[in-house]
């Protein structure tokens, strides 16, 4: 009886003003599409960085050193805390790699083949963390026997910076739109309270409990929040692919598939967030209007 009554009230409240309810749902929807969307995009960027992380190497190009010296250097550099592993790359290995990388530019390959000193022996140093490449680079550069130390530093920095900008942007969007959604829900609830003010006055008069009066409004807010969140989850779940691929730096964008499990997990979070927004907005809307 009670449950049914409360539910009926909620449904009536939603039907009373469908346009206002729809605007609140759309506000939640837009907010959460952007939030959820940026979570997914961030995931793919993190994947990118993950790939890079693994491939970051500091290359120490070696001068004229004996194999024994090379071995000693390798041992010592490997013992630095910033270093994960050190691999020796001979001239011929470097040449093979070069041929592979520039297979479509035979002119370049010819040049290198004619003068193998262009590609000397090298040590490929894998940092324990991608970010610490510069420390290693500086230390190795002054090492006796090392001609030059290189690393793809700028590219790494750019990626990290892009990821951070993305995060800041997402947080900004989240705060502004979240606040807007909250206020819109509060507004619909306030209008619903206003529409029912006579009924509420009589409910008070005959001794209806405070929660009995509030629950239909809370349910209405909850509905708006969850409906918006569910639509947002659906939209992102079905439509994230082109955006992720567009923003990806990976050579083959088709290889990026956001795992379903990750999407489901994040969808649950989005739904929970919608529910909380709905309840909070509803509480905000009732604030000061529903006291005994």
């Amino acid at each position: 009886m009670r449950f049914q009554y409360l539910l009926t009230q909620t449904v009536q409240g939603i039907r009373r003003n469908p346009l206002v309810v729809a605007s609140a749902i759309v506000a939640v929807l837009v907010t959460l599409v952007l939030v959820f969307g940026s979570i997914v995009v961030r995931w793919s960027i993190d994947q990118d960085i993950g790939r890079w992380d693994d491939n970051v190497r500091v290359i120490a190009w070696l001068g004229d050193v004996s194999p024994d010296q090379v071995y000693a250097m390798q041992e010592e550099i490997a013992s630095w805390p910033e270093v994960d592993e050190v691999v020796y790359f001979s001239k011929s290995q470097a040449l093979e790699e070069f041929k592979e990388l520039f297979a479509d530019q035979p002119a370049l390959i010819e040049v290198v083949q004619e003068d193998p000193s262009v590609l000397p022996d090298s040590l490929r140093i894998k940092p324990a963390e991608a970010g610490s490449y510069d420390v290693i680079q500086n230390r190795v550069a002054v090492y006796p026997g090392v001609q030059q130390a290189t690393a793809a530093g700028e590219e790494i920095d750019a990626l990290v910076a892009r990821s951070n900008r993305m995060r800041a942007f997402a947080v900004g969007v989240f705060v502004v739109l979240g606040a807007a959604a909250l206020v819109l829900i509060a507004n619909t609830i306030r209008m619903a309270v206003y529409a029912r003010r006579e009924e509420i006055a009589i409910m008070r008069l005959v001794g209806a409990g405070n929660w009995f009066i509030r629950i239909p409004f809370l349910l209405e807010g909850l509905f708006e929040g969850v409906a918006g969140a569910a639509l947002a989850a659906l939209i992102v779940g079905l439509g994230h692919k082109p955006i992720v691929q567009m923003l990806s730096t990976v050579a083959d964008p088709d290889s990026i598939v956001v795992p379903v499990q990750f999407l489901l997990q994040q969808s649950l979070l989005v739904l929970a967030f919608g529910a909380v927004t709905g309840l909070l907005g509803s509480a905000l809307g009732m604030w000061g209007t529903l006291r005994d």
Partner: protein
Amino acid sequence: MIRLQDVSKVYDGGVVAAQGVNLEIAKGEFVFLVGPSGSGKSTIIRLLLREELPTSGNLWVAGKHVNKLPSWKVPLLRRSVGTVFQDFKLLQSKTVYENVAFALEVIGRPRHVIRQQVPQVLRLVGLAAKADRLPRQLSGGEQQRVSIARAFVNRPLILCADEPTGNLDPGTAVGIMRLLDRINRTGTTVVMATHDHAIVDAMRRRVVALDRGAVVRDQSRGAYENVPLLPEDLGEAEPE
């Protein structure tokens, strides 16, 4: 049943609506609160329902210490006090039956209780045949009967009526008073604020006269005006 002890109420802005009111009303009594507009009749009723808190003093209603009652218990207080107003306060979109049933629905009464009690109380107020009408299809007297039915359907211990006949012609008012009398005879305490001389004089019940928030007369089987005790500013006088 009702006890007010040194109750004073000063509204924001300094209007004194009750000052040092002491009043005791026993179970089953029928009490008229009389006095000119602004004398504090409605304030007393609002205090009994805890729509207002007294500025000082204590009051007890139906065994509850009203001014100390935590707000979550206020609904319980109001379930034991039925209320009737001059303007009926009916929901225009609901039928007579639905208006009365509403009072039971919103306090969570089971449906079978509602189906049993609503027709019963509609018979009591003489509106069983008009259960499916909307309020605007009824006369003023009939609308007031609906609001009395709504106030009484939950069998409250106390019925508070604030000018229940204020909008009605004298003939209709008599019918309403008969109904309130009948409800009083079931053991329900009735407190009625009014400035209708004819009704008070005809009923000869306890009369509590108020002036500027103070009790100036408390008389069993009284009349609206009591010449020996009453200064001339009671009676027809309008607010100062």
